[in-house]
């Protein structure tokens, strides 16, 4: 029997947007989120400002959350996960349980949208010697976001504002030895955004970004990159760091300044690793449960050229970073497209059945 409901797995920006849109179309949506709170990574990892227009991440996510909650056609289950799935497009039977609790309820849905997102690369797997597990003063983008949100950006081992901060790009991305050969798309923008925020919050700090390439697509060039250099005097150096090691009470970072063509060793107080995106645990588990194909990197595979939301299974769609590195523009757009397709499928099936 055809169902009139779409299941959305994941309550981050992609899932919330898709849920709201389906509700706005007058159809039913059930949203299942593994964590206890909605809002995905931006909330769970205490993001400060979004790269887009420096909006407050918390405010932006709350808007999405409230819109989804406010819609009477949207039913939300937090602290829950999908444990089983069978059926086909138009008529899936899905079992949902409280996280870690075995089978809770069985639901019947017509379309499924996978919005299970990403996790950050664990620097312990990095090819270079970054010492994330040796030094507290080596942090990731997520650690930095937390401090920036609280307006307390300090050198973790000392608790005082740093004088010298640097970012190292491409950590866990673009690396054949690790196996993550792809580019994580957003880290150049995020690092530049954070560099600006640090210069705003700690005006005495000197901030460097060590990069291989600066990926500043579209308006990021003029909205983020140029102001970072021209207004905030963030120092961009082409040359990636290979080693971080303690010297005295500071960290030494070693790299090559490729523009000047010589090796460099400079002291830093805080080093921020621009860790890349990997498929989240949820993405990997849900892919197996739903039987959708994953690509070489275990993200959800999108096999159809001009349709960025299609998976290998008809009736199951994907939105956001579950399909690979995405920025928020991509994510919101995909959520809209996926919601459209999910709703359209249900509308078609109901016309046929009627």
């Amino acid at each position, binding site marked *: 029997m055809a169902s009139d409901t779409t299941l959305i797995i994941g309550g981050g920006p992609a899932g919330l947007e898709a849920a709201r849109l389906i509700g706005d179309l007058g159809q039913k949506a059930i949203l299942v989120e593994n964590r206890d709170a909605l809002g995905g990574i931006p909330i769970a990892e205490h993001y400060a400002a979004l790269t887009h227009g420096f909006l407050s991440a918390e405010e932006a996510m709350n808007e999405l959350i409230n819109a989804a909650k406010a819609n009477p056609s949207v039913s939300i289950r937090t602290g829950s996960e999908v444990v089983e799935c069978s059926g086909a497009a138009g008529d899936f039977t899905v079992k949902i349980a409280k996280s870690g609790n075995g089978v809770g309820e069985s639901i019947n849905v017509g379309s499924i949208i996978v919005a299970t997102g990403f996790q950050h690369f*664990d620097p*312990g*797997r990095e090819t270079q*010697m970054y*010492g*994330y*597990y*040796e*030094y*507290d003063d080596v942090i990731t983008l997520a650690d930095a976001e937390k401090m920036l949100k609280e307006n307390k950006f300090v050198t973790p081992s000392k608790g005082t504002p740093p004088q010298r901060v640097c970012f190292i790009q491409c950590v866990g991305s673009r690396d054949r*030895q690790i*196996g993550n050969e792809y580019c994580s798309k957003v880290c150049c923008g995020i690092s530049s955004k954070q560099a600006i925020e640090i210069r705003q919050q700690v005006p005495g700090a000197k901030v460097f970004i060590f990069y291989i390439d600066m990926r500043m697509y579209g308006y990021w060039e003029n909205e983020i990159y140029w102001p970072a250099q021209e207004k905030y005097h963030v120092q961009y150096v082409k040359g990636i760091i290979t*080693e971080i*090691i*303690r*010297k*005295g009470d500071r960290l*030494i970072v070693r790299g090559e300044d490729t523009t000047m063509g010589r090796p460099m060793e400079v002291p830093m107080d805080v080093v921020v690793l621009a860790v890349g995106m990997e498929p989240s645990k949820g993405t990997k588990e849900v892919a197996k449960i739903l039987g959708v194909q994953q690509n070489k990197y275990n993200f959800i595979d999108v096999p159809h050229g001009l349709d960025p939301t299609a998976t290998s299974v008809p009736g199951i769609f994907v939105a956001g970073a579950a399909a690979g590195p995405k920025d928020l523009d991509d994510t919101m757009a995909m959520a809209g497209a996926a919601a459209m397709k999910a709703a359209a499928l249900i509308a078609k099936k109901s016309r046929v059945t009627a």
Partner: protein
Amino acid sequence: MTIPYDAVNTKSSRTFERQAEYAPKDYHEHLFELEHEGEWIVQRVPEPYVEVMTKFGRKKKIPLELTWHHKSCGQCGHIPGYSTAIFWLNRKLNFKYIDPTDQTSCTAWNYYASATSNAAAQAGVGMRNFAAAYETGYFPIIHCGTSYGHYKEMREQLMHHEDIRHQVRDVMKKLKKPMVMPEEIVHYSEWIHAVRDRIAAKQTLDFSNIAVAVHPACHYYKLVQEDAIYDPDIYGGQRTATVSATVIALGAEVRDYSTWFDCCGFGFRHILVQRDFTRSFATRRKIEVMKEEANPDVVITHDTGCVTTLDKSQFVGAAHGLNVGVPVMSDAQFAALAMGAHPYRVCQLHWHSTEYRPLLEKMNIDHEKAWAEFQEDLKKLKSGEKEYISWEDIDA
């Protein structure tokens, strides 16, 4: 400024948990596949063996005994206390071993220095040595860090390049020797690491007041990086742990310094024909930094070239007023001293250049008495009473 001891036992609040799903494919699959196809024999690690952890979590088998010792040309040539200490440790732990004369140098020092060789020749030399070990039934254990790294590379090349493998096979046929690849390529420092608790159990000296700067050999861990010992308790599993763990087991203090990952500057050809590079690099990038930041009593390393470079370069450094003057030795000699080995009869420290006697005093070793004993041995040789000193002569 000294970097404190607990830098080794990571001071960070974070713990790294290695996930099995990210481990690279185990090359042993390919190794055994080739055996199955008749391309070579894989010599299995004999029991008893100890398992140690390598970089991505794979367990590596380290044989305890029945080892065929692939000696180092540099050690045997000019730091013979290094080789002697390795054999002495085996003897004291009652492990059976062979010290072969049917062994050539791996010839990699020459290869990296002069390139007067090629991939097939180098692999031929390596495989000939492995075949010689196999023929005795004992398992090869490698004394030199460069031999070890070179043979790991050779294994990769032979696994992946049929043309090189077949060329070498034809040469082995001419020599009437089998094609044998050991199940593991084992460095002696991995063996010492694996038996470090047994060594510590037989320790007679107190090393708790000895501060050590560890120098890890480039060719040990930078070639075929997955195949080197890492330990989650040492530097959070983020740096190779082989020697550091041994030093800690012997009760000494390991001190960090900011050029830990740097090469010693051996250079292969540089130490012989472009010496200004080697002696400048070794003194300025390693010894001076170690002295300024860690102020160690001794530098411990696990490769021939590293001991040579770091020890011999200090004379000219001192002549130029650089901050040098710390003795250098191998983990084998250090462990042997801990177990009460004679500093001259076993560790042969008289072949070393940088002053080591204050270190021996700190270890409560009466080096003057030891030197006198050694001089007595030499007298017997000079007089013709003995032609050679043997193991039996020096066993207490």
